[in-house]
């Protein structure tokens, strides 16, 4: 999966992990900031679980929370974790 496809995949997972009120369009309007759309800690837990399940990357949520604030920073974290993208 290249980094663009990975980012799209993570965006889909982030919308699915939310409470149901946050759409992809809304995330785009917020500069893809999960924090700015009020992503809750329960939503973050669901997102991390689904990334581990569907992309096969183990994320350590002890890492600084800044890594989880936007779709782009989560994508970068997944890539840095060693798999999920080949470009």
């Amino acid at each position, binding site marked *: 999966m290249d980094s663009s496809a990975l980012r799209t995949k993570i965006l889909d997972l982030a919308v*699915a992990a*939310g*409470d*149901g*009120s946050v*759409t992809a369009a*809304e995330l785009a*309007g*917020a500069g893809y900031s999960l924090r*700015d*759309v*009020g992503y*809750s*800690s*329960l*939503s*973050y*837990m*669901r997102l*991390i*679980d*689904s990334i*581990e*399940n569907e992309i096969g990357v*183990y*994320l*350590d*949520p*002890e890492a600084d929370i800044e890594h989880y604030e936007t779709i782009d920073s989560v994508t970068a974290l997944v890539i840095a974790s060693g798999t999920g993208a080949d470009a």
Partner: protein
Amino acid sequence: MNTVLPDVFTEVLARHGDRVAVTDADGSLGYAALADRARAAADTLARHEVPGERLRVGLYAANSTDYVVGYLAALFAGAVPFLADSAFGPFELSRIAEDCGLDLLVHAPGADVRAVVDRAPGDAGGIGALGVSRVRRYDAPRPRLLDDTEVCRFTSGSTGRPNCIEFSGAAVSAAAANWAKGTGLTAGDRIACFAALSNGLAFNTSLLAAFLPGASLHLSQGLPTASRVVRLLEGTAATRLVAFPALYESIVRRAPKEGFATVRAAISSGAPLRETVREEFTRLTGVPIHNYYGVAEAGPLTYAPDGSGSGLGPPLPGVRLLAEEQGIRVRSESMGSRYLNAPGVFEERLDGEGYYRTGDQGHLVDGVLHLTGRTSRLVNVGGRKIDPIEIADVLRAAPGVLDAVAFEAENQHGEPALAAVVAVGAGVTAQSLRTHCAATLPSFKVPGILRLVDRIPANSIGKPSVERLRRLLGEPRND
């Protein structure tokens, strides 16, 4: 003044000597080392003593060995620790500091404490990695503590003012002793605790209860996802897991194949655990989930020793529980005394015999408690209770908002969530409302489900119709 907890802790810390008391990702403290660290930290706190007054020390931090040291240090210094949820935002923190007259705040070095601290954070010293800061002086006189109050904890109040519950040392000690006895805690137990120590679940099951028999307490920071849990369980060979339902949901989602070999009991509380999650967790791990029912104001009340079925178990030792048509009432040895910052409110919930009206409804079947609902309006999201009136008031104050209603609704995962339907004028977006909420509310109080409408649907007498509001959430969006 005769305090109870300093003597209880002094005795248990001495009795269990070199056993492991508490660990986190950064290290481990034996009982003797914990006593030494707490005594040294108590000296740091005691330097700020106010003549003729007991120091009021706010603990505003996530779980860590330093947190436990700070808690014990406050007790050993003759101070009163106030255990505040580290998820509280600046507004709640300032309300607590002013309402309760805090003198000092113990906090993480990066925590935003500007709302209550005027000087450089950490100006009053440190406890391990945690900073100790002097709290701003407020003009209003602070309320007097009851003579026998030794610990204060918080519960959801209304309009953003958490109610501060005063506990006597005897009540805190009884809560821990009855929990240890009622659940069979032993020196061989290793407790992996993923609930915040400021919360009743962890405070009652872990903070003192673990130390009474000489068990060890294992703490973790950050989001308690399944992978983290497995890592801590494997690293500590934990025998007990203490967590909120959200963590059991995570474990079921991830379906780990290993990690639970040493765990004998998992304890869930704070919010209802779905039966499907309970069954699947036990099928995956072989570990039973034991329900526990507790109320912030009355301590731990029941425990389900067999770990099967939806019952919450029989009352713990020291608890008298009545489940009647008008709701559940309790009297316990672990009862709080009153709300420090809401005179008369706690007392109003006591009946003539001293039973506390919990606001929950349920019944006893063969001595086992089953909950059926709540008489209170509070919404329970992941173990945190939220007053929907407070949220609606905050939304109504946003520019362009005509009206707002907040209520509990199921999210797309079938879990309870905080929802709000907001009638708005032109130019208002969901994003602008979230930003408005986040400016005054902690993140867990920002509605996860937000729907913008032209007009709030009302019933025939003009009141918002929750049934129609819930139905509205299932319809396609046009905002």
